[in-house]
């Protein structure tokens, strides 16, 4: 961006990279809204032990299947009612935010790190290493995401940690392919040749010289990857293959309430709303990130 444009926006010096990013990002009102909602959910997740009115696992005898506060027969102690065994809905939802965000972030961090390593290796070594990595990624992508996750869970067994492993493997190819493509494009540029001539070793070249220039699309992918991971994990939880009871996971909370669907619909409504809100907020933010970081896509 030429610096004279910055002057017209009122600043004297050209904006720093973060400022420029924020200016572009905050142009998109939806993205800012998404960011705000994400911040609120993160705060709730972090402060769940302080905010939650009850222990999420405590079963209140004689207080099962209570409706939320605006309905008849509601108990003011349980704002959003209770589930089939008398656990407080609001508390479980708050602790559920922890589980979902933890899954989303862990999947994102692990698949990004492994993806960077494999993508850079494929781009740098080329030849047989490249072919092998790309073939394996093709294979992973050939199996529908949830089916592959189910296969992995069938082998390693259902648990919260295994959900993270399975979803990470499912989403790995995106990062590897993205990194490999952008690293290959960067490797042909003059500054890389200059660095090579200056005697920079391969490891330093790939991590310090090339990697920072591949980051923009990677950040966008990472943001959208969090929401996809949350959805995928919730799907597994719903099928009974994710986090196991009594963990307060939103998807699993839905699965356990299916028998109550007709008589007590709110027990089912809240966990789903939480998943939808979280995923939507992250996607809104991700769209804004993409528009701000990737000017080629800014047209639309």
């Amino acid at each position: 961006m030429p610096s004279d444009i910055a002057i017209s926006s009122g600043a004297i010096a050209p904006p720093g990279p973060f400022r420029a990013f924020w200016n572009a990002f905050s142009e998109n009102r939806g993205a800012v809204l998404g960011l705000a909602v994400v911040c609120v959910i993160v705060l709730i997740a972090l402060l769940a032990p302080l905010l939650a009115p009850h222990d999420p696992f405590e079963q209140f005898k004689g207080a099962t299947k209570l409706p939320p506060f605006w309905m008849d027969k509601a108990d003011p102690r349980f704002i959003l009612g209770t589930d089939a065994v008398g656990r407080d809905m609001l508390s479980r939802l708050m602790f559920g935010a922890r589980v979902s965000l933890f899954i989303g972030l862990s999947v994102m961090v692990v698949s990004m790190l492994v993806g960077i390593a494999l993508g850079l290796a494929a781009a740098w070594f080329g030849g047989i290493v490249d072919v092998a990595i790309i073939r394996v990624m093709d294979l992973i992508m050939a199996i529908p995401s949830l089916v592959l996750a189910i296969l992995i869970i069938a082998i390693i067994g259902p648990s919260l940690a295994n959900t993270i492993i399975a979803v990470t493997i499912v989403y790995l190819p995106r990062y590897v392919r993205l990194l490999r493509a952008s690293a290959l494009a960067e490797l042909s540029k003059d500054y890389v040749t200059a660095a090579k001539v200056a005697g920079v070793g391969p490891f330093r070249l790939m991590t310090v010289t090339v990697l920072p220039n591949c980051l923009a699309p990677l950040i966008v992918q990472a943001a959208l990857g969090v929401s996809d991971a949350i959805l995928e994990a919730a799907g597994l939880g719903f099928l009974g293959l994710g986090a196991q009871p009594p963990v307060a996971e939103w998807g699993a909370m839905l699965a356990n309430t299916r028998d109550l669907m007709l008589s007590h619909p709110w027990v089912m409504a809240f966990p789903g709303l939480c998943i939808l809100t979280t995923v939507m907020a992250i996607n809104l933010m991700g769209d804004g990130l993409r528009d701000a970081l990737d000017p080629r896509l800014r047209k639309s």
Partner: protein
Amino acid sequence: MLRFLIKRLALTVPTFLALMFVTFMMIRLVPGDPIEVRRGERGISPERLEQLRHEMGLDQPIWQQFLDYANGLAHGDFGVSIVSRTPILHEFLTLFPATIELTFFAMLIATAIGVPAGMMAAVKRGSIYDQTLMGVALTGYSMPIFWWGLILILVMSNTLHLTPVSGRVDLIKYFYPPVTGFALIDSLLSGQKGAFLDALHHLILPSIVLGTVPMAVIARMTRSSMLEVLEEDYVRTARAKGLSARRVIGLHALRNALIPVITSIGLQVGTLLAGAVLTETIFSWPGVGKWLIESISRRDYPALQGGIMLIAACVILVNLLVDLMYGLINPRIRHAK
């Protein structure tokens, strides 16, 4: 074109080999010996155990077992289900039409609504229509479809009584032999009055649920592709010639905007099959997705193994077809290195 075809075909061979290897290893990695699983709770004599091991080829060296497995697959032998004792290929093919029917209608709904919605958003860019449509698309894109399905059942079936809750046809009222496996075709063939409409009636809600995410993807894709095309010189030329807006957008712009959209529709097949697992579970739809989940809970690992192999093969084949079609439409892809 032939060279492109051969090259593209050759690329799928290692993927297939790797897929065979993974599914082969899978059954050896799952907890529990396949024989132990098979013999169930009753104990059996060591001689009988040895005999069973021999029958299943488990006393052979591992490479021999893999070759046997590969040989079996090449002859269409995907193993036998532990629970039903029928060949897995047969079981899969009996259930697959139900899944195809569901995914096909889901895609039909998604395209029929997604493309016009995306087009309208692009043409009225920045307007309240655009913002509303894209807001709806974002919601659909973020939807946990298992929850969406339950909500729709609750509202449409249980409250408004508009659609049936589950299954493919009302079995109390109608019965017809499965000729093709497609409920719509079989019900027509049976000649029973109302059977076809009943089958269609059962199909609507699951199709909407499964089509929701692809619909949102298609709408967003059509919009951005259309916006790009509307900036092109030939669109300006068409406008300058004095053609009506309808003709410019409907004919000149849409045709070019649709090429990437069609490709993405083809590549959604994997997403659809993954979504089918959840949709079929919710609606008790007797397809391969529900069957896979049931195989897990019944510990029917050969069925799981064969089913995953077959589903992955379908996805690979469809992606190959999409690639070939794209190469046919766009020579630049064909001639790229």
